[in-house]
């Protein structure tokens, strides 16, 4: 249990997927201008990340590795994720329209979300067991959500702040991200 808590906190804070590892920057910049969009995107990411890890981990452990087909990892993982997203979207549209309304539209954008593929690769590289992989996936998605919501909040303030002309638009966002990343750097050493 202790071990799982460590993995979760490390994934969410210390090795925050966006601010410390630079992954999933596209939606980070693109979605954070609207808090509601951010929530929708985060839910979708959480959902797909967990599902994707649950699907790819056994695929690697019970199919690719025993058959010495590790070199097919990139190909199979991305295809699994893409198909999974399609299936989920299809299923949601039909049976849970309310849920689809809140996050379904972001699902298509998620196929190319670096974070999800990164998570599926990470759990293999780190040699995690299944429970650990799930915890890691949830941790990473939570970290993504946290950073996205934080930046969305900051963007609200930026709208009414006196930003120098030179930095107006995207540059100031990156400066804000830099400051956010610095504060997250403070989490280092949280877990020994």
């Amino acid at each position, binding site marked *: 249990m202790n071990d799982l808590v460590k993995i979760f906190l490390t994934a969410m804070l210390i090795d925050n997927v966006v*601010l*410390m*590892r*630079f*992954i*999933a*920057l*596209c939606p980070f*910049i693109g979605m954070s201008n609207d808090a509601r969009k951010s929530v929708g995107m985060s839910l979708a990411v959480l959902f797909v990340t967990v599902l994707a890890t649950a699907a790819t981990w056994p695929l690697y452990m019970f199919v690719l590795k025993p058959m010495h087909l590790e*070199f*097919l*990892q*990139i*190909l199979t993982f*991305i*295809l699994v994720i*893409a*198909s999974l997203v399609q299936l989920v979207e299809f299923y949601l549209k039909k049976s849970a329209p309310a849920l689809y309304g809140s996050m379904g539209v972001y699902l298509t954008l998620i*196929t*190319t*979300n*670096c974070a999800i*593929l*990164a998570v599926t*690769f*990470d759990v293999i*590289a780190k040699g995690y067991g299944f429970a650990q992989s799930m915890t890691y996936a949830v941790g990473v998605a939570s970290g993504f959500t946290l950073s996205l919501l934080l930046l969305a909040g900051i963007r609200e303030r930026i709208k009414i702040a006196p930003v120098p002309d*030179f*930095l107006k*638009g*995207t*540059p*100031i*966002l*990156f*400066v804000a*991200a*830099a*400051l956010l*990343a*610095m504060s997250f*750097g403070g989490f280092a050493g949280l877990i020994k």
Partner: protein
Amino acid sequence: MRETNTMKKYLSIFANGILTENPLLMLMIGLCSSLAVTTNIANGVGMGLAMTFVLVMSEVIISAFRRLIPDAIRIPVFIIIIASFTTIVDLVMKAYAPALSRAMGVFIPLIVVNCIIMGRVESFSYKRTVAESVFDALGMGVGYTWVLCLISLIREFLGDGRFFGHAILPERFQVKFFSQSPGGFLVFGLLIAVALAVNARIAKKGAAR
């Protein structure tokens, strides 16, 4: 006469990727794999070349086969092709540059979800000829690589005191901030600001004329 026109067309496609529609600074796609590897120039160049290779090969194959890829299943087919070339790059790097491969870690496989490749393949090479695709891919690749190199140079110099791996700045002038993630964000943000300013100048000059 037609020869030079086609050549001009190709060159303009090429130049497009380097400046006007620079994927990182202008279009702001493909950010994922980028910033993380810019801690030193070797990684930056390595990533740029790897990405360019996958981009060129993918655009070429998809453009060559564009009539053989049914529209309904084009996305999965694109994925298969891009993933295959990414795997090839990954394997070749592991074999011939293992240290670099390990330094880049998960970011090599992440090339497969690099928005640049998917974006260009979908919007350009699926509809254009092979030759055009080659120039577009090269342009985009070079555009990507030079920005990456610039960021790497700055971060390596200010953060580690090195220039192309050679120690230049003594330790007390090094600002470790730049080697860490906040520094990456900052340098990139400032570069975008510069690019936007340059673009605005050019637009102003063009309008004034």
